[in-house]
């Protein structure tokens, strides 16, 4: 159906999409995970309540999350230029993707850690655990199923954003869809990219859920 050239272009751009998605998710976790943990710790009923810190984080997260991604993309162009040296292409897209994903991930992490049974945290405290012990040995391991599910949601969401970024020259499958489907009326290529995107989402979702379930020890086998 497609020429070899187009197939290899689709393949290459699938990899580019994955690269943008995975790289920005990873970097976003480096920022979002500690933010989520700090939100839980500093909350009023947290291990180390700190109203100022909590409020500050809360506002930052809400603010960033309320900016539509396409606008954020444009807003951060100067920052993207400063970091990457240019404002278009896959690597440059990682900057806005990360900025959009980090607060989203912070919220996901926050809500997952909150679900850990407070009784277990209390038990850990009664054994003389400090807050670091509680975060690393109780909160994160006990919430791991939810955290893996979160990561899956984050990956899929960022994949969608990356396709959006593609429409303004971000590279990857979204870029191809716009280039061929919109500007050149080659709808078959556009459909192919859509199918590839759907497949990617399905695979990520399936793998994430499987991993979450495989690592969950709460179920009776």
């Amino acid at each position, binding site marked *: 159906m497609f020429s070899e050239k187009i197939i290899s272009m689709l393949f290459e751009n699938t990899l580019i999409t994955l690269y943008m998605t995975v790289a920005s998710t990873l970097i976003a976790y480096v920022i979002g995970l500690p933010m989520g943990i700090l939100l839980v710790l500093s909350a009023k009923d947290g291990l180390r309540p700190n109203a100022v810190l909590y409020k500050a984080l809360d506002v930052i997260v809400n603010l960033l999350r309320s900016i539509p991604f396409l606008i954020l993309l444009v807003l951060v162009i100067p920052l993207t230029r400063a970091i990457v040296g240019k404002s278009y292409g896959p690597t440059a897209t990682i900057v806005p993707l990360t900025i959009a994903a980090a607060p989203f991930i912070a919220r996901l992490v926050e809500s997952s850690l909150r679900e850990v049974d407070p009784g*277990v945290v*209390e*038990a850990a*405290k*009664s054994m003389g*655990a400090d807050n670091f012990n509680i975060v690393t040995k109780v909160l994160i391991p006990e919430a791991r199923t939810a955290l893996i599910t979160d990561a899956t949601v984050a990956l899929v969401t960022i994949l969608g954003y990356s396709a959006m970024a593609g429409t303004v020259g971000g590279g990857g499958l979204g870029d191809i869809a716009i280039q061929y489907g919109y500007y050149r009326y080659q709808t078959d290529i556009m459909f192919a990219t859509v199918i590839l995107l759907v497949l990617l989402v399905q695979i990520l979702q399936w793998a994430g859920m499987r991993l979450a379930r495989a690592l969950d*020890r*709460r179920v009776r086998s």
Partner: protein
Amino acid sequence: METDNNAMSEVMIRIEGLSKTFRTKDAEVEALKDINLDIHAGEIYGIIGMSGAGKSTLVRCLNYLERPTKGNVYVEGKNLADMDERELRSTRKRIGMIFQHFNLLMQRSVLGNVLFPLEIGKVPGEQAKKKAMELLGLVGLSDKAGVYPAQLSGGQMQRVAIARALAADPKILLCDEATSALDPATTKSILELLSRINKELGITIVIITHSMSVVEEVCTHVAIIDGGVLAETGEVKEVFAHPRTDAAKRLFMESGAHEGLVTELKGKHCIRIVFTKNSSFEPVIANMVLSVGTPVNILLADTKDIGGIAHGQMVLQLPEDEEKAQAMVEYLKTRKLDVEELTDYVQ
């Protein structure tokens, strides 16, 4: 009300003028009011009270999971109020704690759970594992080391929690409603385990409960807490035989009484008899009925045969004929039973 024996042994926990007030947005709850209590080494101290009496708050003050609003808690002579966070954490390692809902780490195996306090205490791997396996042996779960808590029964989970609480070699074990989620048979086996731990490892145990039978089963001493106030303290057999306060009497009545039945009965004259080690083990109620020649209603019977001696209590509703009722009371007294008149037991 301490015996000489206790006065001589070391005070493990001293609670002094302890009060705790919770302030919420629209209310102030005085959960504990001026509590004073000494718990000595080797005792199994029951703290009993109705729901909301302040039991959990009190036990959480003993390791400063909750900070008292007023007063002091001394553990092995050291005032917890004088400690910084670090010292508090190391003191907590000397105080094990178990809970109603076990609070195990569900994503860790049984062995992993027992290893937890050892990891926190930085005990090297092999040594920690050996210790954890020993403890699992003690609680009878050696074969479950690799299993996850979700696959255990409630009783087994509590045993894991006990092994975990003992891992850091505590001197004190706090139990907050540790058997409230368990059936009677499992409760009994857990209480037996606690009693064994007390004897074999010499660990002082504090048991929080709302059930009189738990106190009876294992405790040496009991404190009755009612509306945030300590109503009565002392040796279990003493408090049980001669309850001085209404709170105590109410608690004894509650355990096992069928309220529905009580309200339907007509006669007003009720007595409570307590079987202690002085009481002879004969069918005393049957003999009483035979000798007086009138039946009685047994409103509550909570007795056990421990080593050929009856232990426990009964509440009897006597015949309306006062003469016969008096004859029965006399009969019971000659059998060396403690008889207590109850007013308002039947409405």
